[in-house]
């Protein structure tokens, strides 16, 4: 629905009461990332810890959600259990379109239920249902029960947590519609501390379309670009796992806790290998004809008499890196085995894989022993990792409880900081060099998607910290506008500023279209200002020694350039967050 305000549903789990609130600011923050920051400033408590019952869990969509293809993601915002600061995590699936068709721009959940509950909502209903019997269930069992409990098959989204979220693990994700995730920075724990096991959103409203000639024309133009050109073929074909071989070839793939940047046997977990032997089918986020979700299968013989079961596991480059190359597991089926356990437990796959890679090296070095790890962790030993993932999710002993708070937290206690592959949070699957390391270490989400540092590293050119910092800041500004729409970032090559402006204008957001540059700058500042208000200090972030020891296709890491770039980027971020733009208050 086109409107110059935001229609927000707030649900207080302590009181059980809900309210529809009309919030102004459409032409200042657009939606998505901008709206989430605005709502955190309205409902969040900057000075209280992440698990204070009053802290909000926010889901926000954008002005173009549903109106154009690939405007299909939702921004989740919360105070993170990982660093106790403001954080965002994004997911595809169905939640964006279901929120649109529930006639909401955002959902804000505060308070804490007395007993485990699920929320069911749509355009004409809200229900908080007591579900103590689901507590303890894994992601898949929870999803199956919620399907039967609530209506709307096909046109609903089911968000839920597993045991990791229930335990309050800072590595817990929110599973979105089985195959997607609000993965990083512990959103699952935020649901867990609220005693919120699941959220079922039914998209059951419909709206009149803009009555003008431009909208249908622009829709066709966008759709054609996304489907008829080769701009999206990477995602449609092998998907993001195409990166595995590409990065390995340039010695930029993290292998065995980043002790290596390539492996001669990497073909066993390449995108090509997965497609050849393990790809079962594809899925799509609602409203996306690209369908980049790749679902593999594993089968397990459970009795001597040739009895098998099979499981379906979604895979991407990042999970393959985190549970494959990083753990030295180079067989695609064994990688899917580990991912399956991670999924069931409701863990973030990147954080947990990288954490266990550190634990493996720590065990090798004798810093910790099997009395800590319980199982004999060894690079390449998939069975050990499957068991360890469960310990990590359940917090079986003090070691795993500490490790779930982050690899650096464990390294603080047990030593081994030098080889902790942490860049703000556990690293993403790119070891491309100084710009990426800086980008993830200081980036707003500590994500490889904050800005294209990994891409910048691969372009030839002089090492100039000022220019690299300029690039990171400018690229982030563009991306933050896309994540305010809320576009899938895979479509960033299609949705350039000019096209976005026409899209917005065609559905009735003329004012927003005319000041996109100002708005994106404003959102960028607002997000940083919010992050700083909750305690972030970019100067306190360190990049562990391991990142300076690697060799890529460019040669050794230039530690001086890395230090200079990090300092320069930190300075730019601080300037952004400190800028007293009147609109940010």
């Amino acid at each position, binding site marked *: 629905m086109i409107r110059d305000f935001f229609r927000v549903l707030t649900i207080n789990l302590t009181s059980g009461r809900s309210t529809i609130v009309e919030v102004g600011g459409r032409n200042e923050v657009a939606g998505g990332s901008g709206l989430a920051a605005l709502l955190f400033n309205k409902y969040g408590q900057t000075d209280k810890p992440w698990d204070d019952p009053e802290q909000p869990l926010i889901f926000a969509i954008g002005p173009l959600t*549903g109106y154009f293809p690939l405007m299909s993601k939702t921004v989740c915002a919360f105070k993170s259990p990982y660093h106790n600061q403001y954080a965002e995590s994004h997911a595809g699936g169905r939640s964006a379109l279901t929120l649109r068709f529930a006639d909401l721009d955002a959902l804000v959940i505060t308070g804490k239920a007395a007993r485990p509950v699920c929320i069911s909502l749509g355009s004409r209903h809200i229900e908080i249902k007591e579900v103590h019997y689901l507590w303890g269930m894994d992601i898949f069992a929870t999803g199956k029960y919620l399907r039967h409990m609530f209506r709307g098959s*096909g046109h609903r989204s089911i968000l839920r947590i597993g045991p990791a979220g229930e335990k309050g693990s800072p590595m817990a994700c929110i599973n979105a519609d*089985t195959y997607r995730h609000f993965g990083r920075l512990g959103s699952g724990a935020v649901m867990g501390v609220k005693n919120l096991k699941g959220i079922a959103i039914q*998209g059951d409203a419909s709206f*009149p*379309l803009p*009555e003008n000639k431009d909208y249908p024309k622009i829709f066709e133009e966008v759709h054609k670009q996304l489907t008829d050109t080769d701009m999206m073929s990477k995602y449609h074909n092998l998907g993001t796992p195409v990166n595995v071989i590409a990065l390995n070839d340039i010695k930029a793939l993290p292998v065995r806790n980043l002790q290596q940047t390539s492996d001669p046997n990497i073909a066993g977990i390449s995108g090509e290998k997965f497609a050849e032997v393990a790809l079962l089918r594809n899925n799509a986020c609602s*409203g996306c004809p690209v369908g980049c979700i790749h679902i593999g299968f594993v089968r397990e013989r459970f009795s001597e008499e040739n009895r098998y079961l099979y499981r*379906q596991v979604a895979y991407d480059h990042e999970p393959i890196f985190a549970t494959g190359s990083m753990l030295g597991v180079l067989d695609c089926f064994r990688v899917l085995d580990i991912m399956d356990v991670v999924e069931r437990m409701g863990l973030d796959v990147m954080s947990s894989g990288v954490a266990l890679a550190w634990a493996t090296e720590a065990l090798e070095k004798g810093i910790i022993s099997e009395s800590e790890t319980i199982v004999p962790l060894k690079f390449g030993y998939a069975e050990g990792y499957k068991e360890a993932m469960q310990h990590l999710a359940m917090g079986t002993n003090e070691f795993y409880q500490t490790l779930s708070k982050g690899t650096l937290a464990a390294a603080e206690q047990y030593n081994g900081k030098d080889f902790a592959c942490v860049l703000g949070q556990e690293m993403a699957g790119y070891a491309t060099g100084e710009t990426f390391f800086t980008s993830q270490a200081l980036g707003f989400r500590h994500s490889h998607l904050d800005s294209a540092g990994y891409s910048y590293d691969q372009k030839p050119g002089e090492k100039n910290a000022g220019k690299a910092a300029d690039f990171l800041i400018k690229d982030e500004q563009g991306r933050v506008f896309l994540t305010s729409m809320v576009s899938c970032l895979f479509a960033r090559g299609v949705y350039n500023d000019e096209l976005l402006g026409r899209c917005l204008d065609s559905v009735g957001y003329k004012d927003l279209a005319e000041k996109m540059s100002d708005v994106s700058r404003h959102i960028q500042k607002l997000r940083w200002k919010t992050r700083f208000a909750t305690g972030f200090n970019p100067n306190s972030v360190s990049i562990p020694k391991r990142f300076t020891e690697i060799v890529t296709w460019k040669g050794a890491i230039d530690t001086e350039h890395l230090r200079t770039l990090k300092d320069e980027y930190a300075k730019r971020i601080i300037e952004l967050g400190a800028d007293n733009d009147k609109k940010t208050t």
Partner: protein
Amino acid sequence: MKILTTPRMERCIGCHSCSLACARLVHKRLSWDTAGIRISTSGGLSTGFEARNCLACNPAPCVNACPTGAYSQRKGGGVVVRKKLCIRCGECAKACPVDAIYLDLTSEPFVCIHCSRCVKYCPHDCIEMKEVAAEPVEGETAEEAQS
């Protein structure tokens, strides 16, 4: 005459592009409900997808159920709906054996008109128009039906 068919739903990825196209192009709405084809899972996202759409019955039970003549038989199967005559009673949806008719909040019915506009939006060619012999509708001879 051509009718919309869904011969390759095993390929469906659940993008809803067909439903969204129908709502957008035929009914001028942003919706995945007010559409002549709707997609749901067979039993959760791990089980694949099914389409809810008009199977082009002839005779169509919904025509018989309609008390005002808003529904009439379409040549080649399916129905022609004259919404001006519709009193929003919902009998058509009750009569449909395959749940192909969606009723909105006001009980306005939405059913496939076999116009083909959704087809090109399916990225995996799950749906296609199929030529069928035009069976005579009530009061027509076989020759008249083919004309």
